[in-house]
């Protein structure tokens, strides 16, 4: 983390890279830099002679003001703020370097917006660093949700003069009492980190505190009636991590550990029943919220390499616990006794990885790996009384364990036929064991083959084919659910499946102004033993992108991406063989084009313009003799992002930003509805968006 501002300097860089690759297990295919033969390298000579260190203050600061059109707060996802009208922000990119090598930097972007960031970093790059950071994240859903409920702490209450109704249209004051609510989530992250690099080791500690606030949709159910509620979110997550790594010639070993703690300011969500109770005295409902919980994790990594062979080992254990006090089984009438006062839940996981990479002979390398992961739920099993939606007692149920053991073995080889062509092929076996699911185990055999072909120095291409076959133990529908499963149902994640996937990629990368690439992919999932359930999924897609440097100052780029997904599902209305069928066609299109024109007007003016269009839609048709389509489900966005930066003089610049967005989405689930459209669901109404919004900003920056 925060490795963005480090100067490339001396032999330590390689070590840092080695550590980096061992931590993030993205191993290259045998020819990666970690496989380079460094034994004879005179790294002294690698020192950058031209990287002169400039001491003193440098960088820039900027202040900006903008007009933001946030009638629909959804535009905030693009603009970075949901504040309507004039908004201000601060940007900075400052660094102070001392002759000694000591360096302090401050970087800020859009500070003042919900999505602003700031980082203060001090230390001696390559030796030690201390980082202090802030980052805002926000997601804006809607400011148009309608509800008669008022939120106070854990409670959702109705106006004092509320009159219940058996159905929404019989609630006499509903339409007068509804108000607009915002559904959005804002997160603020504070970070503190430090790292130290010794001669043969590296140590790193970091701490992150995240505070989350906002509201999200919640469904308050009482028997067959339901009210959509804006559930308040007020919680924090603290994470602490520490790592230490030791290295020597051909080996590296290390331990990393982390601890995280989640705290929810809310204990429950409780709500007044807007409906006339179906049974007795169900005047209110209560539901548990995410409980406070903790997680610990510790892992050990080791890496050995030499003579073209490399072995990597990882062992990790983690433990997840929560012990929040239970709410009563019901708040309506006498609650049946619970077997314990809290869950005292504990889940332990164990993870093990073993990898080998090696070059066997010239042109042939192999890699093999074995991964093991186990989830062991150690929570005590108890019979818990079931009071269905605070209404009636329905016996007891035992908490299922959902234990799981996953094993994966891979064997692959890469063979270089000649300078232009190499082959890559492999086999993978996956074996999963489960408890409390409809199948005890699943196994999958997969093979893949890939050929890379460098046609000319400018043209290259690769083609990849994959095939996998999944099956497992006898399918026995679980009996722990409230309603029985159709005996012909095969849940898609446990069903037998044959998968085929093909990809073709062509790249044009000459040493000239134009570069381009194109990819095509198709896949097919055939659930060959499923009569009821998901039976077939086919996908196709392609993307094309090109970049053209017209001159040093003028470049244009464009891209086009389209994907299709076609899913077939079979169902049964009479608990027998399939007699209705669903086809879902999904399609997404992304088109973009951009131009950057720099150094105009005697190098005083830079211009940039980007346009993107994205369109995602899903069409579902259900057929049982008669064919009936579902309604609209789509999102469409046109986005223009333009800037003009004018350098007033060597130190000062003025930047103008313009963002325009035209956005529409709709979901047949709530399209065209009002709060009382559905008799037994008090909804938020129509939550679709349809807006055109502008963001116009002016930023003044000063170069130090």
């Amino acid at each position: 983390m925060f490795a963005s501002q480090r100067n490339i300097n001396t032999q330590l860089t390689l070590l840092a890279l080695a550590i980096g690759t061992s931590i993030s297990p993205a191993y290259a295919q045998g020819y990666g830099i970690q496989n380079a033969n460094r034994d004879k390298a005179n790294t002294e000579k690698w020192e950058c002679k031209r990287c002169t260190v400039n001491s003193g203050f440098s960088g820039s600061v900027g202040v900006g003001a903008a007009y933001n059109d946030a009638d629909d707060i959804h535009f905030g996802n693009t603009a970075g703020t949901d504040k309507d009208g004039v908004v201000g922000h601060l940007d900075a990119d400052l660094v102070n370097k001392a002759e000694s090598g000591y360096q302090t930097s401050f970087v800020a972007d859009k500070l003042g917006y919900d999505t602003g960031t700031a980082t203060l970093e001090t230390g001696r790059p390559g030796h030690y660093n201390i980082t202090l950071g802030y980052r805002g994240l926000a997601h804006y859903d809607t400011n148009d949700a309608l509800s008669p409920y008022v939120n106070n702490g854990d409670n959702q209450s109705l106006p004092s003069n509320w009159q219940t109704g058996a159905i929404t249209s019989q609630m006499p004051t509903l339409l007068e009492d509804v108000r607009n609510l915002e559904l959005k989530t804002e997160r603020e992250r504070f970070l503190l980190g430090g790292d130290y690099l010794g001669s043969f080791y590296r140590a790193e500690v970091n701490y992150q505190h995240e505070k989350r606030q906002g509201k999200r949709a919640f469904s308050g159910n009482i028997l067959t009636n339901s009210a959509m509620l804006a559930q308040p979110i007020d919680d924090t997550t603290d994470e602490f991590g520490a790592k230490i790594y030791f290295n020597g010639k051909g080996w590296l070993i290390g331990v990393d550990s982390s601890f995280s703690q989640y705290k929810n300011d809310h204990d429950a969500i409780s709500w007044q029943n807007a409906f006339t109770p179906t049974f007795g005295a169900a005047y209110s409902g209560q539901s548990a919220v995410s409980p406070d919980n903790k997680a610990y994790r510790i892992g050990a990594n080791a890496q050995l390499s030499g003579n073209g062979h490399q072995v990597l080992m990882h062992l990790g254990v983690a433990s997840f616990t929560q012990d929040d006090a239970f709410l009563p089984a019901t708040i309506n009438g006498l609650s049946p006794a619970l077997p314990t006062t809290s869950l005292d839940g504990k889940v332990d996981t164990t993870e093990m990885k073993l990898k080998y990479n090696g070059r066997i002979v010239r042109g042939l390398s192999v890699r093999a790996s074995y991964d093991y992961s186990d989830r062991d739920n150690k929570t005590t099993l108890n019979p818990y009384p079931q009071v269905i939606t605070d209404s009636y007692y329905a016996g007891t149920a035992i908490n299922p364990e959902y234990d799981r053991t996953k094993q994966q073995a891979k064997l692959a080889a890469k063979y270089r036929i000649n300078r232009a062509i190499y082959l890559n092929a492999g086999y993978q076996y996956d074996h999963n064991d489960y408890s409390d699911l409809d199948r005890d185990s699943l196994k999958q055999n997969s093979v893949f083959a890939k050929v890379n072909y460098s046609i000319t120095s400018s043209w290259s291409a690769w083609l990849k084919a994959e095939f996998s076959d999944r099956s497992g133990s006898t399918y026995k529908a679980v009996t722990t659910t409230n309603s029985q499963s159709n005996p012909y149902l095969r849940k898609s994640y446990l069903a037998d499946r044959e998968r085929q996937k093909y990809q073709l990629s062509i790249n044009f990368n000459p040493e000239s102004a134009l570069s381009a690439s194109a990819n095509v992919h198709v896949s097919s999932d055939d659930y060959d033993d499923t009569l009821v359930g998901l039976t077939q999924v086919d996908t196709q897609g392609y993307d094309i992108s090109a970049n053209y440097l017209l001159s040093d100052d003028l470049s244009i780029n464009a891209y086009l991406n389209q994907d299709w997904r076609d899913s077939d599902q079979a169902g049964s209305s009479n608990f027998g063989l399939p007699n209705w069928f669903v086809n879902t066609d999904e399609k997404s299109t992304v088109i973009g084009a951009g131009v950057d024109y720099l150094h105009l007007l005697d190098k005083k003016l830079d211009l940039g313009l980007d346009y993107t269009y994205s369109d995602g839609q899903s069409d579902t048709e259900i057929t049982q003799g008669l064919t009936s389509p579902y309604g609209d489900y789509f999102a469409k966005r046109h986005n223009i992002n333009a800037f003009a930066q004018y350098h007033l003089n060597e130190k000062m610049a003025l930047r103008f930003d313009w963002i325009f967005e035209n956005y529409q989405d709709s979901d047949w689930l709530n399209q065209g509805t009002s709060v009382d459209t559905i008799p037994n669901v008090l909804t938020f109404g129509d939550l679709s968006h349809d807006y055109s919004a502008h963001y116009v900003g002016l930023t003044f920056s000063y170069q130090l």
Partner: protein
Amino acid sequence: MKRATLAHLANRALASKKIILLAIIAMLAACSGDDGTSGNPGEPGGPPASEINALNIAINEVLFEAGIATVNYRITNESDEPVVGIPSATYLAAQLLPQGFTNAGNASEWQYFTSESCSSSCDGEFVDHKNGQYSYTFSAAFDGLNDIAFMPGATQRVVIKVGGDALPDGTDLPVTNQHYDWQDNGSAPAYTRNLIEMQTCNTCHNDLAFHGSKYNEVETCVTCHNADKVSNPDNVFAPMVHSKHLTGFPVSLADCQTCHVADETLTENMNWARVPTMAACGSCHTNIDFPSGQGHPAQVDNSNCVACHNPDWTMSAHSQADTDAVLGQFNVEVVSAKLNGDAVDFSVRLSNPATNEVYSDSADKLDFIDDLRVYANFGISVDYTTRSAKSIKLQDVEPISGSNGIYHYQIAGLTLSDDPATDKGSLALQGKLCSNDAMLANCADSDVTTTIKSSYQFFSATEVTEQGRRMVVSNETCGSCHGDQQLNYHGSRNDLEQQCQLCHNPNMQADASAVNPAASTADYKHLAHTLHAGSRESYPDINYPGNIGNCAQCHTTDDTGVLTVALPLSPTVQPLAFNDGSFTSATSAICSACHLSDSAKAHMTQQGGVFNGTEADATAGTESCATCHGQGASADVLKVHPIK
């Protein structure tokens, strides 16, 4: 021909005995009549049918052109010989909307399009291909008929009704309905509404037919009895049929599967539990008004029903499973019995079949026994003696002796028959058990009782015996309408096979002044006959659902496979006793319960029957009924009754 006559008979509103008699006579006349002439020779499809007892209509296809349907079908007789020259037919067309289509939770619904007829003239175009093949083209496209839009892909139904008239040569044609479900795109229908077989209805109703006996298949009924055809919503098929069975139903209404019989060949046969709707459920649960929330929380439509009343719940609520489970934990048997003077000494063993264990305590010590009584009568040779001995309640009396599950009791004061040493008697048992859901429970803790299945044990002067009184009706035959020992009288007596007869025996007397004396005695045979015929004053509401002339609905067969109505009667059958001391000879008494016209009585008297004579005359054996009506004779009662 036979079907038509019987269907006519089933119109029980007109089923006075006179009409039955006439109908039987008419049938005999018809059977000895013309065989019919041969059909046109040389036509393809084989020689035309020469005799027709049944018609088979095979609908080959429905051709659909420009929205107009043409149905091609073939009609044959019971021997698969083509039937040519059918003079008339009716064609019905309807469309089925799938479950949940009209709104979430709604059942599938039939939509009536049209009914067209052909006789001397046709609504549409009728072609007799003269080889058993026929075609009918409807007069118009279905789309828009009866204001119903034809929906491509929907399941469609065509019903053809023929019969009830005769071929040009005079051969009678039985009324026959045949349906055909199809889909306009040519493939098999994607969904159906096959809930019930007509055969199930006819287990009680025999040959049910309506509207002038024209329509006799449930698949026909539903094409018209739907919301788009009938003006009164009470006449939509499901609510109509449910509410018609609400009164006088011979078995518990709570058992939906009396009619909705489990049948894997009917894809929707579990709809009664899986598709609860306000209309279907409300037609039995008549105290509920769903929209206004009377008797049930308000519901505006069917979308929520299944959320609470899921199939498991509904099946469990209407299930006999708890009763069966409770009964499975208790068995009572008489293990020994013998005469001791005018008393019977017997021993009883109580056991739990579920665990295969004997209850070691006697009944008076078992806290789950609410009632367990034993009755006795001795004198099977005379269909029992007058009722005399008082029954004993095992839960109240201490056994005389016994241990470890077998306990000895005595019933004293039996009236014995003339020669007890060669005669036999019966012990009958009845009772109730205290229960809680599926388990036996202490009666102090539970108000719920489960009635056991009554049982009996024959015994001689010295021991228990297999053989005893002849079996005339069985619990199985009674159960075809009343459920398996589900009909309880006098609290918990439900063994209709052998228990009732202990008291309802020939010593019961008829009212000498009664118009129909059989309807005034409680002697079992006369009681059962007149009850089902609806001729007893104290049971005026009895509407026998089947054909009263079908003796086999109730009577069982003897060891040799002969129906127990066959003449001559068993010599143990006693004459009908009257309260003025007179007697009517046994056979005449039985026949005249239904055949009570003066002419019928005169016929019986002429043939030796004695009405209200002395006991000596009534038992002198002067009846010669069996000569003509005996088994195998020309007018065998087994043949002259419409027995199926």
